[in-house]
Every structure is written in C-alpha cells, then in structure tokens.
C-alpha cells in the first residue's frame, strides 16, 4: 500500500490540516485505491487515479476552514454547554449544602471545613508544611454528581464518547484556575513580603494542590460519568458499505 498520507500532504504543499480532516481524506483515498486495485488496475495506475481524485488544492483547503467552524460549534454544543451547566449545578448544590447546614452529613463545621481531611507531608519550612493532600468529601460527592450530569447531557445532545469524557472534565477546570491564581499570589505577593520561596517547597505545594484540587476531583468526575461513557451515542448507526 503506498503512502497516501504523503500523497495528500504533497498535493496540499504540506499545508497544516486538522488530524481528523487528514484522517477522513486519507480514508477516502484508501477506499478509492483499494477499489481500483480490486477492479484490476496495477498499483501505479491506481495511485494515479487516487492522485487525480484529489482535485483543486485551494478548494480542498477551503474545506478545512469550514471543518474548523464545525469543530468550534461541536465544542460549544457537546463539551462547553454540558460542562458549564454541570459546573453551575454543582456550585448551586454546594451553596445549598452551605446555606441549609446540610454539611453535617459530611462532618462538622461549615461546607468548606465539614468533611475535609488534610494530611501534611514533605519538609517543614518557614512557609509551613511543604506538601499536603486534602480530601474534601462534599466537593468529591458534588463532583460525582457533576460528572454524571455533564456526560449525560452531552450524550443526550448526541455527543460521542470522547466528547462526553471532555464534557465531564470541564468542572475540573475551575480548580485549576484557582491553583494558578494561588500560585500567582505566591509568586507575586508573598515573595515581596517574605523571603523567596525555595523551588523545592514550591514543587511540594504545587503537587499538593494538583492532587487535592485536580486529580482527586477529576477522578470523582470520571467515576460519576462512567455509566454514560461506555454507552453508544443514541443516533449511532452502522455504516453502509455495499
């Protein structure tokens, strides 16, 4: 089998193509090439037919622009909308827990402290314990719920499995932003009033943040979404190739 990807790239003067567009066009060329071989053409002639079928490169590149618009629309419809809806719902659930003091379900104190268990590790420095892992049960329960909601909504809208996976991880973006803000505060504000933080301490702190506020919540989101990640898309269909 000749390298049809190289054939396509050369035809488009190595212009950058989104991988999925390239995959689709190469798949088309492969089908065409196989059909010509099955019809009895030799490899060289079949390759020539495939090359002829590529058409005007400028027109083909215009298709790429249209494809990018579709990708953006899909991103909004299948990932951003379900993900943000789930984030909003989780925030609301958290506020209700806080407002109505339902946090006793998770432990003593208010929503933020109730059910939160913190373990410190790493060296003790003038800036405190370098590392920590915080397990925040209300947050993890809320994320189980958020993951389910995001993946379910995405599935109902017709999103594919990969899109459901990304949609359920959207609520994990907010903690990442908080971590970045926190790091910026450490670097820009505290460094002015305290001695600069050693890089080792900073790395311990960052890993603590990542485990507590990104990896654990993302795991809860994935567990919540799991029942909807394995299902086929509702409008899924088998290909007709006859």
């Amino acid at each position, binding site marked *: 089998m000749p390298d049809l990807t190289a054939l396509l790239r050369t035809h488009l003067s190595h212009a950058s193509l989104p991988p*999925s*567009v390239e*995959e*689709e*066009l190469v*798949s*088309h*060329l*492969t*089908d*065409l090439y196989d*059909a010509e071989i099955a019809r009895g053409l030799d490899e060289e002639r079949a390759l020539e037919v495939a090359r*002829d*079928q*590529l*058409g*005007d*490169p400028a*027109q*083909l590149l*215009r*298709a790429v622009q*249209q*494809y990018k*618009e*579709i990708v953006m*629309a899909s991103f909004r419809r299948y990932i951003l909308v379900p993900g943000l809806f789930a984030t909003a719902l989780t925030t609301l659930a958290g506020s209700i827990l806080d407002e109505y003091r339902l946090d006793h379900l998770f432990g003593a104190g208010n929503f933020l402290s109730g059910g939160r268990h913190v373990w410190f590790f790493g060296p003790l420095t003038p800036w405190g314990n370098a590392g920590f892992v915080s397990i925040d049960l209300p947050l993890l329960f809320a994320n189980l719920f958020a993951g389910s909601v995001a993946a379910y909504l995405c599935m109902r809208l*017709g999103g*594919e499995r990969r899109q459901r996976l990304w949609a359920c991880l959207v609520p994990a973006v907010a903690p990442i932003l908080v971590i970045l803000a926190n790091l910026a505060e450490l670097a820009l504000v505290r460094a002015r009033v305290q001695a600069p933080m050693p890089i080792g301490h900073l790395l311990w702190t960052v890993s603590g943040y990542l485990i507590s506020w990104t990896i654990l919540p993302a795991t809860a989101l994935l567990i919540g979404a799991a029942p909807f990640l394995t299902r086929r*898309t509702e*409008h*899924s*269909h*088998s*290909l*007709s*190739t006859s």
Partner: protein
Amino acid sequence: MSIDSNLKRGSAELAILSVLHAGPLHGYEIARRIAQTTDGMLTFDLASLYPLLYRMERDKWLEALWEDGPNQRRRRSYRLTPLGRKQLKPLRAHWQSLFIAIEKLAEGSNA
C-alpha cells in the same frame, strides 16, 4: 456567485441529500453512489465533495459520526438531519420544474 456555480452547487446538494436519504454513508461511498446512480454524469473529486459535506454539516443539514470500519480504520459517516430531510422535497421539486422548463425551451428551439 454566478448562475453556473449556483446550478452546480444546487445539483450537488440535491445529489448528496438524495443518496443519504437511503441511509448513512461515508464520503467515498457518497461519491461512488452518486457516480453510479447518474451513470457517471455527476462525479465528485475530494476537493468538490468535502467542502460541500462540511458546509452542509455546518448548516445542520447533515450530521457526521466517526465509526470503526474494517481493517481498524475509522470512517466519518454522514446522515441526514431532520432539517436536511426537509430540504430534500423542495429541492427536488425545484429541480424537476427547472428540467421541465429547459425541456420546453429545447422543444421550442427544435420546432
């Protein structure tokens, strides 16, 4: 846009909607079915097929889904959306009336 390109685009849209009316197909199969059904009168190369498919998908006439095909190769298959299905009837009627009008013109010039 010239009359010629409007005609080309309109006929190509009708051809794609018509073959997809029978069921979902991937790009190569769409081109093959159209060529086969029209006895080679209408053919698509990649540069004429995919801009159209992507535009129709963007306009929500079609929806596309990646499917696992044979030989561990993925294919993107297209199917009509309810909006695409709605376009088919008026497009067919439009083209039929256009052909009748052209036929009348041809008959008139032969007379």
